[in-house]
């Protein structure tokens, strides 16, 4: 039982990342009708926003220390971060320690700006082109973005830790009546799940309870009619692209302490996130979230040794097997709407 609960928690955690990326993908597809294969790259850029802020906060003054030597026998260079010089060692160290949560504030304007530039500079020229063209250009863009990141940051993963207070793990089992040490779960993964829930809730609330959101939803349902009412729906959709980019970026920022960011991490999530979107139903926001968590949980359970003993290799194919079954049974996905991507 403890294993089942542990894998359920793992599934929620994986599902959080899938759901956040798929939510952004669906927002873009639902509003602009564009299949954005560069969305994984936006997730990766978000993670590198955390790396960048960490590097900015650790920019240092360098002083030679004649009492110590470096690996070549020259006087060692001792670095002291500027933030520690300016605000004192304690405050400076705390700022560096909390660089990942602080990166949320850092990432939002950057990601929105990247989203705007992507949409206005490139993707708008492909609105009336076939989906295959959109996929090719956005996939090409994803490769360019990841190569740019690699050129600046290298190919090696860059450790980007959670704040000290959230490192390590806690005894989740005791909270629900299990023996001590039966269910140990990392703090930061719980934080990630809670963060994902808040972001997903905020996006839904924004679309549901604001005038802007209402217009966007109306535009998603019938773009032409909204346009005929004199509303500049294109501008609102561009803003939604920026919001979708920010959602992917924030998912990446908070993911940085879970797995050290590397330039390839976007591609690792991209294909799975597309499967999530298709299973959830193209254009359906609740479908994307539901499918994200469902497939995350299924993937976690398929990794259990007991399951793999029955069906070897199931952990690597489970998502695709379930996707095939769901699409066969419900061709529009779990919550897909009639007329989306249909002639």
């Amino acid at each position, binding site marked *: 039982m403890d294993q089942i609960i542990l894998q359920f928690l793992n599934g929620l955690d994986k599902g959080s990342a899938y759901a956040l990326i798929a939510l952004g993908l669906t927002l873009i597809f639902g509003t602009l009708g564009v299949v954005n294969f560069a969305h994984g790259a936006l997730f990766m850029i978000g993670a590198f926003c955390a790396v960048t802020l960490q590097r900015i906060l650790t920019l240092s003054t360098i002083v030679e220390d004649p009492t110590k030597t470096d690996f070549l026998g020259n006087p*060692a260079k001792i670095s002291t971060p500027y933030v520690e010089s300016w605000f004192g060692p304690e405050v400076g160290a705390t700022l560096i320690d909390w660089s990942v949560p602080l990166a949320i504030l850092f990432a939002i304007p950057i990601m929105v700006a990247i989203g705007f530039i992507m949409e206005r500079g490139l993707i708008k020229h492909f609105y009336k082109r076939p989906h295959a063209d959109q996929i090719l250009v956005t996939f090409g863009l994803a490769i360019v973005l990841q190569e740019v990141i690699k050129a600046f940051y290298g190919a090696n*993963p860059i*450790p980007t830790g959670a704040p000290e207070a959230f490192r390590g793990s806690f005894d989740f089992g005791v909270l629900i009546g299990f023996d001590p040490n039966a269910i140990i779960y990392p703090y930061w993964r719980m934080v990630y799940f809670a963060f994902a829930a808040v972001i997903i809730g905020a996006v839904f609330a924004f679309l549901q309870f604001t005038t802007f959101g209402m217009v966007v939803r109306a535009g998603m349902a019938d773009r032409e009619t909204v346009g005929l009412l004199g509303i500049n729906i294109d501008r609102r959709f561009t803003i939604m692209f920026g919001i979708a980019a920010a959602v992917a970026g924030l998912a990446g920022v908070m993911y940085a302490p879970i*797995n050290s960011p590397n330039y390839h991490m976007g591609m690792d999530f991209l294909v799975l996130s597309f499967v999530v979107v298709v299973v959830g139903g193209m254009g359906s926001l609740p479908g994307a979230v539901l499918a994200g968590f469902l497939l995350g949980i299924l993937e976690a359970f398929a990794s259990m040794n007991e399951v793999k003993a029955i069906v070897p290799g199931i952990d690597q194919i489970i998502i695709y097997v379930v996707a095939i079954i769901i699409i066969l049974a419900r061709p529009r996905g779990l919550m897909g709407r009639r007329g989306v991507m249909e002639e």
Partner: protein
Amino acid sequence: MSNSNFTRRGVLKTGTIAGAGLALPTYLSAASHAGFTNAPTGDTVTLGFNVPQSGPYADEGADELRAFELAVEHLNGEGDGGMLSTFSSKVLDGTGILGKKVNFVTGDTQTKSDAARASAKSMIEKDGAIMISGGSSSGVAVAVQGLCQEAGVIFMAGLTHSNDTTGKDKKANGFRHFFNAYMSAAALAPVLEQLYGTDRRAYHLTADYTWGWTQEESIAAATEALGWDTVEKVRTPLAATDFSSYIAPVLNSGADVLVLNHYGGNMVNSLTNAVQFGLREKQANGKNFEIVVPLYSELMAKGAGKNIAGIVGSQNWDWKLENEKGDRYTGTNAFVKSFGEKYGFPPSQAAQTCYAQTLLYADAVTRAGSFNPCAVVEALEGFEFDGLGNGPTLYRAGDHQCFKDVVVVRGKENPENEFDLVEIVEVTPTEQVTYPVDHPMFSGGALGSCNPGA
């Protein structure tokens, strides 16, 4: 007045004879190299360095490339000469190889076997490379080694740790300086016994490809010989990034040691996940839970950050060897100085093995007096040398594997700087990691005979 005897016929005749005479030395010289692939005919010779320049091992590949460039510089008499001055063989004099200036071309393996074979093929067929070197993945090394055997060029493997490279997939044209999974296990076992005792239960997470399989087999055999139990061996997809689903079952498996047979990004992520799940603080079977990473590099330690602290593993070489373990490892400091002054940081073990392989190839050609692959094979087989940083080393004739000391390391708890991430725990002597050519873990293939190609 002069009486000229020049006629049109006479000029043609004389010209033909003179031309033939002038061409004769070149023709004879070409003949002396003929009969093998890409025999160098001009005053240069081309080496092909096939490393991952993109993909997850690109940083490792970049370090290999730096070492290759440095080796070529030293062979051509540029720079400070690096390990040429410490190498026990003294035939290399900084005038290239057999008087020919060394040029090189590079290829990108992308850490994919098919891409690696394509780039090696291109370097051999289009650029005329007479030797291919590089690596960072055993799957790639095995694939490229097979190609070089078919093409009739020498393959001087870079970083490849699978037993299969010089085991069931060994080839006469291929040589490996780097150590292997069996050697890691043989070196680690006594240290593990000393640190963690003989009553342990190990859980293996293993990358699902040739290197992972052979490392798992080697470590399990060595630890079971100590008295450890192997609780479970779980294969993980090479493409996996989040290992939480594989780590969770470890918690209540009854194991008290987790062995991560992962490399590169896989290892960084699986170790990070294991630490997140509290395995470093966990108590199991009345003991501290331990994590072992049988093979890791400085670059991986950098990627893992603080999580590497206290983790035991093995390395082919470490840049601190000569300072900490003395003159036996002479050459280390010379190489670190050359590399460090050129690039600003110490070399990785991948860089050292690639640098050594380039010098060993050049030395073998010079001693053989020929670029013919079969002459090079003969010169390298059974070659004993020293001064390349690893102590006395033998290139065994039976499988083309180098035998030398193995370094057991541990992640440093309080590193003083970004280059000081691992500490040397012990250096295991060669005798302790040596095995017979027909050892069962290396059986199933034959070296065959050298192929000179065209």
